């Protein structure tokens, strides 16, 4: 058994085990941590097939950013599992029905799916061309052949970002904000005023 094969089975086993543990864990924080293990091992699989750029991006984006936010939110939730489990028998038939319908749809879709005639799907499996790194190869395809798809993906993300900002941003009245430019420009001449109030008189502020 070569090292590559051994590492493939190692990563694949851990990946599947942790994926199952995501569902089986009783504690939601543990679920997220198992999910992170799954991401990490998926990146390992990418490295084995020679897609090290994608592997690193998977770790940077999913493990380093997305999953941190997941963990952040889940850690602060207060979930009572005993309460969640009540009514299991009542909702079980409905849940099974929905799951069955979705499974049937996936089977139908995958079973009858084939690539469009114009697209050659697997014409580049030979590996990276000579004198190019993985990164250059992805860039040379992504920014030429798939430019419109790439731009469209960016637009979708932009819409999602604007949506999130619009939903969460609120203007609070009455809060004092720190304006650093103003603070730095402050001089004694601007903020101090000499006054000599007479006896029994106050100072106008």
């Amino acid at each position, binding site marked *: 058994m070569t090292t590559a094969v051994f590492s493939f089975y190692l990563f694949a086993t851990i990946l599947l085990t942790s994926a199952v543990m995501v569902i089986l864990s009783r504690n939601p924080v543990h679920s997220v941590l198992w999910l992170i293990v799954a991401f990490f091992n998926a990146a390992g699989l990418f490295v084995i097939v020679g897609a090290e750029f994608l592997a690193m991006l998977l770790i*940077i984006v999913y493990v380093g950013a997305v999953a941190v936010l997941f963990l952040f939110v889940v850690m602060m939730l207060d979930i009572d599992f005993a309460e969640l489990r009540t009514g299991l028998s009542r909702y079980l038939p409905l849940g099974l029905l929905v799951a069955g319908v979705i499974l049937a749809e996936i089977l139908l879709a995958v079973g009858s799916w084939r690539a469009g005639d114009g697209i050659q799907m697997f014409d580049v499996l030979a590996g990276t061309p000579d004198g190019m790194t993985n990164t250059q190869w992805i*860039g040379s395809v992504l920014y030429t052949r798939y430019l419109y798809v790439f731009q469209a993906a960016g637009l979708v993300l932009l819409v999602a970002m604007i949506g999130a900002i619009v939903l969460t941003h609120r203007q609070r009245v009455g809060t004092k904000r720190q304006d650093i430019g103003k603070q730095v420009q402050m001089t004694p001449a601007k903020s101090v005023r000499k006054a000599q109030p007479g006896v029994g008189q106050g100072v106008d502020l």
Partner: protein
Amino acid sequence: MTFTGWFQDLLGVDAGYLVATLLLILAIIVPVMVGVAMAVYADRKIWAAMQMRRGPNVVGPFGLLQTFADAAKLFLKETIIPSGASRGVFLIAPMISFVLALAIWAVMPFDAGLVLSDLNVGLLYVFAVSSMGVYGIIMSGWASNSKYPFLGGLRSAAQMVSYEVSMGFILVSVMLYAQSLNLSEIVMAQKGNVLGLLNGNIFNPLLFPMAIMFFITALAETNRPPFDLPEAEAELVAGYQVEYSSMTFALFFLGEYANILFMCALIPVLFLGGWLPPLDWAPLYYIPGFVWMLSKMAFMFFCFAWVKAAVPRYRYDQLMRLGWKVFLPLSLFWVVVVSGWLMFFTDKFATAPGSLPL
């Protein structure tokens, strides 16, 4: 014959590779750990000197063995696991911190060719591993099942995620200039890049602002003052480390300093010309590159300690303002400036590197 090749002749291809790589890893980790011990000592000495104190001066000559004495004291203490803690996560968290802080050294080039793994995505590897470092802190904060660690963990997660974004853009402008993600090639791209005379991106007016910003971002990423809010002792006791004792605490401490040392090595590689001398002048190349690299690391570490002694701690909202409202727009804008300059005034992108016939 290479080091690895010699072992492969002796023990066969696979076993030889394994043994040689393990030895090379040890050859990096042992100096790093000794360096960490010395860095802790240097940190305290520099800090003391700036406050007109003596610092550690009792254990060993000039107090040089102080760190080892502290380590021995920690090893002999009892590991306490709080009764409400989530045991597995509580124990794994410091291990993650420590292992990641060591794993990141794999791609660090100390001299021409003196690197354990010359990855072509080296800079991304560095970014990926350092972005995973937040898990050690956030897991320990949650698993301690205690208020202060939890607050420290949350602060740290928000802080590191915020500064990673602008750090990514700074790295993008460096890699655009070097046209590579490989750390060795990034160093070589700095050879004589300013008027054919000076080595190092920091002397280049185009990348000078990025160098300063990267230094500040590195301080924030390693939770060093003035960005040490996750362990702000005045508010949070010691932040995420409150419930840790003995070895588990030692692992956090070692990991933190190993990360700081790594940042002190990464700044030279990205901006100060790595193992190259600062002047592109032949006699300077007689000094081994390793010496240049180490002296630049030492200089950067002095800067880290200097900042710690000189600057008060940021307030949390100021920290977030600096990260999101100042650094992020500035670094994003600078990526546009750098790529625009390279497009219009140099021939670096005249032909796309290895463009595919489509």
